[in-house]
C-alpha cells in the first residue's frame, strides 16, 4: 500500500517510535511481574511507578496513586460511572450530555433501563454545551455528572472548569471523559476540580489496549472487578506492563509537544480555511474558537459522506465521516443531530483530525484533490444543478 495521508487521528494515532523503543524491552527481556518479591520483577514495578508519575504529570494530578491503569478509554468511562453509582446506591440520577461517546451513552441507556433517571444535556448549533441546563438539572438525587472534555467529532471543548467549580460546591462527583483532549490540550485536574477523568493511550501515540482513570484522592467508589491487589485493588489483574510503559512515555512526549508546538493547529487551520474557501457548499460544524487544535469537521452539502470517504481513499487520504452509511447505522451521527446540523449536509460531514506527525505536503495533497472528489459527487447528485453550479430546491 502506498503512503497514506492519515487524517483520522481522533480514531487512532500512530505509535510514536520513541514510545515503541520504550516499551520493547518489556515485550522481550524484561518480562518480570511487577508484584514479585525478586528484583527481576520488582525492577519492572519501579518502571511501572515511573510511568504512573508521567501520566500523573500530564493530567496535573497531585499524587501518582491517583492514576489507575485500565485497558481502554471505554473501561475507564465505565469504571468511573459504575464505580461511583455502586457506592452511592441511594442516588438514582445521572447527568451527561447528548453528544457523549458511546462508551458513556450506551452505559447510560442501560442504566435507564435499570431505573436510573438520566439527564442528557443538549448542545447548541455550534456544539456548545448548555451549561445552564446542566446546572439546573443537578439535585440531591444526582449520583454523578459525566461530561466529555472535548467532542470526538467536532473537537469542541466543554467548559469543564465552570462545571467542576459548580459541582464541587454541591458535593456531586464529576467525571470527565478526556479521551479526545489528553495530549491535545493541557489538562489540570486540580484546576478543573474533577473527581474522575478518563484517558486512552492510542489517541495520543501509545498503542491500543491501554487507558487510565484519574481518581482524586478520597473519591468514594467501588471496583468493578475483584481479584489481586494490583492498582490497589481498584483494577485487579496483572498489569499490561508494556502498555503502561508506553502510556507513560507517550504522556511525557505529549507534554513536551504541548509546550511549544503550534504546527498542528496551523496545518489544521490551513486545511479548514482552504476547504471552506474552495467549496461554496461547505461549512464548519462546531465552534471555531473553542476546539482542540487537531480537529475540523466540515459539512459538504448535497453529497454523502461515505461516498466522499471512498473517493478520498482512492487518493490515499484517510479521514472519517459522521454520515449514516459509513457507520453502518442508518442515521447521521448523534452529535450532528444533537447540534441540529441541516439535513442538506448532515450526511455529508467529514472529520479531518491531525496529529503532530501531520506535515504540510499532506494538507496540500488534500487541498489539491478534494475538488475532484467533491465535484464528481456533485455531478452525480440529484440535488445539484450542474449548469448553474448550485444546489436545487429540495421538496420534502
Amino acid at each position: 500500500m502506498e503512503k497514506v495521508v492519515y487524517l483520522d487521528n481522533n480514531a487512532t494515532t500512530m505509535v510514536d517510535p520513541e514510545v515503541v523503543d520504550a516499551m520493547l524491552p518489556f515485550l522481550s527481556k524484561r518480562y518480570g511481574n511487577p508484584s514479585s518479591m525478586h528484583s527481576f520483577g520488582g525492577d519492572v514495578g519501579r518502571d511501572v511507578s515511573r510511568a504512573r508519575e508521567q501520566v500523573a504529570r500530564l493530567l496535573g494530578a497531585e499524587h501518582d496513586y491517583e492514576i489507575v491503569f485500565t485497558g481502554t478509554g471505554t473501561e475507564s468511562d465505565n469504571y468511573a460511572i459504575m464505580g461511583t453509582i455502586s457506592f452511592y446506591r441511594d442516588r438514582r440520577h445521572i447527568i451527561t450530555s447528548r453528544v457523549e461517546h458511546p462508551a458513556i451513552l450506551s452505559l447510560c441507556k442501560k442504566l435507564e433501563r435499570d431505573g436510573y433517571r438520566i439527564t442528557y444535556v443538549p448542545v447548541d448549533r455550534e456544539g456548545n454545551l448548555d451549561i445552564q441546563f446542566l446546572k439546573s438539572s443537578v439535585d440531591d438525587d444526582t449520583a454523578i455528572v459525566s461530561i466529555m472534555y472535548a467532542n470526538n467529532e467536532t473537537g469542541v471543548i466543554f467548559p469543564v472548569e465552570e462545571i467542576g467549580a459548580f459541582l464541587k460546591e454541591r458535593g456531586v462527583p464529576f467525571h470527565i471523559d478526556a479521551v479526545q483532549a489528553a495530549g491535545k490540550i493541557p489538562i489540570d485536574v486540580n484546576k478543573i476540580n474533577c473527581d474522575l477523568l478518563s484517558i486512552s493511550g492510542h489517541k495520543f501515540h501509545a498503542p491500543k489496549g491501554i487507558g487510565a482513570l484519574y481518581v482524586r484522592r478520597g473519591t468514594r467508589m467501588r471496583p468493578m472487578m475483584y481479584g489481586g491487589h494490583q492498582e490497589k485493588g481498584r483494577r485487579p489483574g496483572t498489569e499490561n506492563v508494556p502498555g503502561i510503559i508506553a502510556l507513560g512515555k507517550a504522556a511525557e512526549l505529549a507534554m513536551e509537544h504541548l509546550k511549544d508546538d503550534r504546527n498542528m493547529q496551523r496545518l489544521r487551520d490551513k486545511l479548514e480555511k482552504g476547504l471552506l474557501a474552495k467549496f461554496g457548499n461547505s461549512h464548519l460544524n462546531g465552534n471555531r474558537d473553542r476546539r482542540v487544535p487537531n480537529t475540523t469537521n466540515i459539512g459538504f452539502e448535497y453529497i454523502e459522506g461515505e461516498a466522499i470517504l471512498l473517493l478520498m481513499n482512492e487518493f490515499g487520504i484517510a479521514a472519517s465521516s459522521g454520515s449514516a452509511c459509513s457507520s453502518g447505522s442508518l442515521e447521521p451521527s448523534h452529535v450532528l443531530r444533537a447540534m441540529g446540523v441541516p439535513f442538506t449536509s448532515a450526511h455529508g460531514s467529514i472529520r479531518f483530525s491531525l496529529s503532530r506527525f501531520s506535515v504540510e505536503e499532506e494538507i496540500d495533497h488534500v487541498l489539491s484533490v478534494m475538488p475532484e472528489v467533491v465535484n464528481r459527487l456533485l455531478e452525480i447528485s440529484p440535488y445539484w444543478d450542474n449548469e448553474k453550479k448550485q444546489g436545487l430546491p429540495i421538496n420534502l
Partner: protein
Amino acid sequence: MWDYTDKVKELYIHPKNVGKIENADAVAEVGSIVCGDALKLYLKIDANHVITEAKFETFGCGSAIASSSALTEMVVGKTVEEAEKITNQDIAKYLGGLPEEKMHCSVMGNEALEKAIKSWKGEDISHDEDVEGEIICQCFGVTDPLIRKVIRENNLKSIEDVTHYTKAGGACGACIHKIEDILNEELDQAAVAAKKPETRKPLTNIKRMQLVEETITDVIRPELQKDGGDIELVDMDGKKVFVALRGSCSNCVVSSVTLKNLVEAKLREFVEEDIEVIETR
C-alpha cells in the same frame, strides 16, 4: 470499512450512465436527502417498449451509487416487460453481492425502476396511501407493501434483515413491533406454502376439486372480501377452473389482473402448477 466487491468499487469510482435524459419517457425519484440516499432514474423507451437509454443521479454512499449504475446497465436493451422482472436480488447479484447492511441500496434501485415503469404505463405514482399502502416506518417512509415484497423476494427471516434491506426501523425504532407483525405474517404464509409440496402428487379429479374448493374458500375468498368482492366456483373441466367474480369484483376494471395474480396464482400455489382459471359471467 465495508467489504465491497471489486465490481462495487469499480462502479462507485467510475459510475456509468450518470446524468439526466432530456425528454425522458419515464422518470422516477425515490428516497430523500434526509434519509441519506436518493435516486433519480431516467429512461428512454421506444415504440417497441425497448429501453434504449437509462441514466441516473444519486445522492448516497458508495453502494448506492454502484447499485444505481448497475441498474442502468442492466435495463438498457431490455423491454419494459423484461425489465419489470428485475428484482433487487438481481441488482445485488450483478454487483457480485452487497454487504447485508447495504442491501437497501439494491432495493432502492428496484423501487425506482418499478416506479419509472408505472409512470410510463400511466399508473398513479403520487404519494397516496391508497396507492402505496400504509407507511410503517415514518423515519424513512417505508410502506407495508414494500416491506412485504422485500421479505418475500429476499426470503428475510429477522427484523434486522428487514432493516438492512429497507431501512425500516433503523432510526427511532418506533415501528419495530409493526415490522415484527408483518414479518410473522409473511413467515406464516411462507411456512404454509412450504408445506404443500409434500401433498403434491398426481391428483385425481375428485381430489383436485376438493382442493380447489378449499383454496377458494380458505385463501382466495377472504382476500377478495377485504375489498368487498367475492368469487363463485362455477365448473371444472380437468385443470380448467371456471369462476365468476362477484360483489365489487364483478365490475372492477382490474378483474382480469385479480384473476391472474390472485385466483390463478393461489390455485397454482396450493393445488397444481398448471391450473388454468377462466372467468365466466
